[in-house]
């Protein structure tokens, strides 16, 4: 009788192990589609052209970490929504520039004549960790963007790298891995936006070129009389 019970328990254990392995091996996918708020700041008196490269708006991060299932995190739409809301609140006017004009000599001058600068954001790096890796209950997401800022003529003002970090507790009962990862990604996106909104004006090259441009009538401290 005891052997029969043990044999039965063994079968149950094998079944449980198989189910666990299947679950462990399941790939997980998240698409971040949240809306983002405009920043509550004084808009800078700049007219900015924004170019959203397709690599940013279609961004998908895929990673198969050790000790954890494979993850696919789709951030393309979230990138676009975040930057649109952010830049709309940061500048008095923004004009989206078609990617097609980037290498076109004909369309570019017409579009850019009234602009103070052109911004082209890109998402360079994504890292994340899940509880299986970190040993705590946190899902974390880390993003690194590059904000390329040029004059309308294409002269480099700055390549500004900024980061965003977000973490989300999975909760004692577990809110679902996908929900926790999505929330961590949203927090990271908001953090990146907050970083840009609050530090843009203090980036040296931006400050010098766009916010305090040298007065063409000034030369040192000597005032040159206008003709």
């Amino acid at each position, binding site marked *: 009788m005891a052997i029969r019970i043990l044999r039965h328990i063994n079968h149950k254990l094998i079944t449980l192990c198989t189910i666990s392995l299947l679950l462990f091996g399941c790939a997980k996918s998240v698409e971040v589609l949240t809306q983002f*708020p405009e920043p*509550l*700041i004084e808009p800078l008196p700049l007219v900015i052209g924004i170019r959203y490269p397709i690599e940013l708006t279609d961004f998908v991060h895929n990673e198969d970490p050790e000790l954890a299932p494979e993850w696919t995190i789709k951030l393309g739409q979230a990138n676009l929504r975040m930057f649109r809301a952010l830049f709309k609140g940061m500048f008095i006017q923004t004009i989206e520039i078609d990617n097609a004009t980037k290498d076109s000599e004909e369309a570019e001058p017409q579009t850019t004549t009234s602009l103070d600068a052109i911004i082209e954001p890109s998402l360079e790096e994504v890292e994340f960790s899940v509880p299986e890796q970190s040993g705590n209950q946190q899902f974390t997401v880390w993003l690194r963007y590059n904000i390329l800022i040029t004059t309308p003529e294409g002269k480099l003002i700055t390549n500004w790298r900024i980061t965003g970090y977000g973490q989300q*507790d999975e*909760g004692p009962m577990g809110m679902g891995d996908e929900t926790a990862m999505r929330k961590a990604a949203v927090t990271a996106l908001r*953090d990146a*936006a907050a970083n840009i*909104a609050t530090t843009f004006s203090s980036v040296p090259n931006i400050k010098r070129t766009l916010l305090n441009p040298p007065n063409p009538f000034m030369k040192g401290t000597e005032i040159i009389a206008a003709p």
Partner: protein
Amino acid sequence: MLLTSACMTTNIEEVKDGSTGILPEESIVILASNYHTGNPAEEDFVECVVDKVQSGRNKLNVHSADEFRDALFPWLEPRTTPQGIDGLPELLKRPGVSDRIEERAIRYIIWVAGDTERTSGGGSLSCGTAPPAIVCFGLTWWENLSAYEAAVWDMSEGISTGTISTSVNGTSVIPALILPVPFIARTQATACKGLSKQLKTFISSGTSLR
């Protein structure tokens, strides 16, 4: 399966630094504290406090935390939130911030920090199947500590009016002789109930209504 309650000890402390009070048309916002500065309370704990504070006796109007964070974006994000009450005047001076707070009639911001953790445990419980039943033998136990603190900021005065802290210690036990009989100490739920009740009293029973 029977579910019975286990022994718990609860401690609630209140430090009041200023007078409080709230008008019927005014609201409060309850936010998890910043993970840069402390240990933010779990999302479900904050939700529990919100539910309890806006219901029952002495209930208060609780404004949506998400809406408030969006309205003040980017000033209540982890990297920009005031690190303490000293940073509040700077926040209130930022363009548009005071207006957004007044539009929503937010009188107090409550920052909730803390967590629930297992402090000890032991024993052994084994279960197996003996068709048609599941049979368990043994005894397992664990001790949880739920410790939370709510800091109350008065937005009309730009000051801290005090803190309420609660700690609940409880031991859960599951003895099993064929059938397991769990005695679960629901420390987090008890902490939520205690903190919420004290918070309502703290805010409502003030002497000053502005």
